[in-house]
């Protein structure tokens, strides 16, 4: 592949507390805010507590999930005093860090998240050909935690999460961590991830050529809900012990998926072996998602350097 020249990544946003009970990002943003910039940094970083009210209450959200409020429709909807807090806040964040899809948007937006699922470190984004994001992922392979690149194939207009506001962006998701808890190993992994990202950006901006190569990309295919009682809608099974905590371990047709309270095992009925992730995320029960399934493929990335 031919080398690609790209603009410098001169404005970066690091956001935490988009969900107010995902504590590693919240504490990391607080620590970053304490260290005042002295103006000599090669890249300007704006550090933001995305949902301060939710963070203060240590809840995911106050009225509605902030990280679903960044579609083009949500960002252009008229807001008033009676609008949900997060709808107002998403427009504030869009004004501060965007506007989304405009030239004024920050060059890179890194949104810090935690999950109760055993995902390890993931970069989650909407593009499988964003060379900046893919190169950062490749650079993060030297982190002490294995990193994976997760792709949701959604067009920018419909992309609903905060990271879609930047010209480039991703959620940096680390699990497992219960909501409302900060685990030091998880905090350190997130701190290291952000540091490595900043190292890459600084090197890139100073003219380093980053060699191309290959990155495994996990593209989300579908979600699977819990089995539920047809009348009450209450779940009737838990994620099977053989699947629990096995994020990114290939799930084959016939493998156990759920263990019903009645004792019955429900198995994966799909025809294609896929990679499960976000297995048993606490916040997804209300969204009807027990796990997500992804297809993996190797994506070739070109060498990149600044103009």
């Amino acid at each position, binding site marked *: 592949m031919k080398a690609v020249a790209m603009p410098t990544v001169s404005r970066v946003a690091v956001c935490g507390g988009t969900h107010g009970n995902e504590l590693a990002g919240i*504490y990391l943003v*607080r*620590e970053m805010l304490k260290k005042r910039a002295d103006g000599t940094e090669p890249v300007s970083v704006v550090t933001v507590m995305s949902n301060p009210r939710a963070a203060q209450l*240590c*809840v995911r959200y106050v009225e509605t999930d902030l990280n679903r409020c960044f579609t083009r429709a949500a960002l252009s909807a008229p807001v008033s005093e009676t609008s949900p807090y997060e709808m107002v806040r998403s427009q504030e964040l869009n004004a501060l860090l965007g506007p989304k899809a405009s030239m004024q948007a920050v060059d890179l937006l890194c949104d810090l998240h935690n999950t*109760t699922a055993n995902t390890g470190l993931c970069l989650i984004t909407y593009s499988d050909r964003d060379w900046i994001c893919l190169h950062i992922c490749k650079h993060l392979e030297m982190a002490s935690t294995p990193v994976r690149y997760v792709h949701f194939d959604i067009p920018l207009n419909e992309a609903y999460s905060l990271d879609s506001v930047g010209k480039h962006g991703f959620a940096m998701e680390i699990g*497992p*961590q*219960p*909501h*409302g*808890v*900060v*685990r*030091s*190993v998880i*905090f350190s992994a997130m701190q290291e991830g952000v540091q490595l990202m900043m190292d890459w950006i600084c090197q890139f901006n100073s003219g380093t050529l980053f060699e191309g190569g290959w990155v495994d990309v996990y593209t989300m295919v579908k979600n699977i809900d819990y089995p539920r009682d047809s009348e009450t809608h*209450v*779940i009737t099974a*838990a*994620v*099977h*012990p053989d699947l*629990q905590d096995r994020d990114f371990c290939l799930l084959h047709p016939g493998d156990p998926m759920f*263990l019903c*309270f009645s004792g019955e095992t429900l198995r994966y009925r799909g025809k294609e072996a896929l990679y499960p992730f976000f297995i*048993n*995320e*606490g*916040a997804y*029960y*209300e969204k009807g998602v027990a796990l997500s399934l992804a297809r993996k493929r190797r994506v070739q990335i070109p060498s990149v350097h600044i103009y």
Partner: protein
Amino acid sequence: MSSRTNVSCLHEARRVAIFGGTHGNEMSGITLVNMWKQNSAEIERNGLLIKPFISNPKAVEKCIRYIDTDLNRAFTPENLSAPDVEGRLYEVQRAKEINRMFGPKGSSDAYDVIFDLHNTTSNMGSTLILESSTDLFNLQMVHYIKKAMAPHTCLVLLNEHPQLKYSTTRSVAKHPIGLEVGPQPQGVLRSNVFESMRTILKHALDFIEFFNSGVEFPPCTIDVFRVQERMDYPRDTNGNITAMVHPHLQDCDWEPLNRGDPMFLTFDGRTILYEGANTVYPTFINEAAYYEKQQAFTTTCREILAANAIRKAFK
């Protein structure tokens, strides 16, 4: 052969309640109780009235720990005797209702046994929580459960501390037992945790049925961990935590913590060591709900309790 004079004769335990959802985001108990309310076959036992009950339905509906105040701290004498007033905290009102239904606390009309089902984000495994070191019925029951669960480990936490003991939902009953199983995040249902709790209850109900049928349980000893002290996170002047549980302590519930062992790791990478004079056994390490209660972990000391033989009293 046990001497007849050393057998304690106790009343039958006829009325038993199983509480889930005392905290609305601790999913094992909520799921079990809802399941048993729909179909109680699994928990039925001869001669026993067994009532599965959701203690804090409003909190369960929202999948949060509590609405106004922690229900599991609300059963104080002041709250239980307070007059019904408009604008009363939801959980205080609920505590009074529960006391009417299953108590009154301290009276002979109270339910015999209440099992209160809880989960924790701490790596405590299956834990049985006692509030008294002299309740023979409870001591024999936990001994029975531990044996029946083996080789799966069931540990016993004893909270008899005069200041740190609190007024639990289950304290309404004559024989209160807390079941605490972790680690499990709030709002999450893990199959292994669910099934452990389900099995503990099965053995507990078997014990009560055996006891009521006249079986004599010989004298026994029980290893317990007795609550000593609550340890908070280091905090700044604004009350924000400045350190996390150290990686060497994280998930090491019930393991010895000695002077000089790492305890906390500050956000800027400094280790804070445990300075206590004696070896302690920490538990409830990094429980999500305890950040606001100023508790990073609780220290305990090991103790062996002895229990007399017990048998149902003849009428």
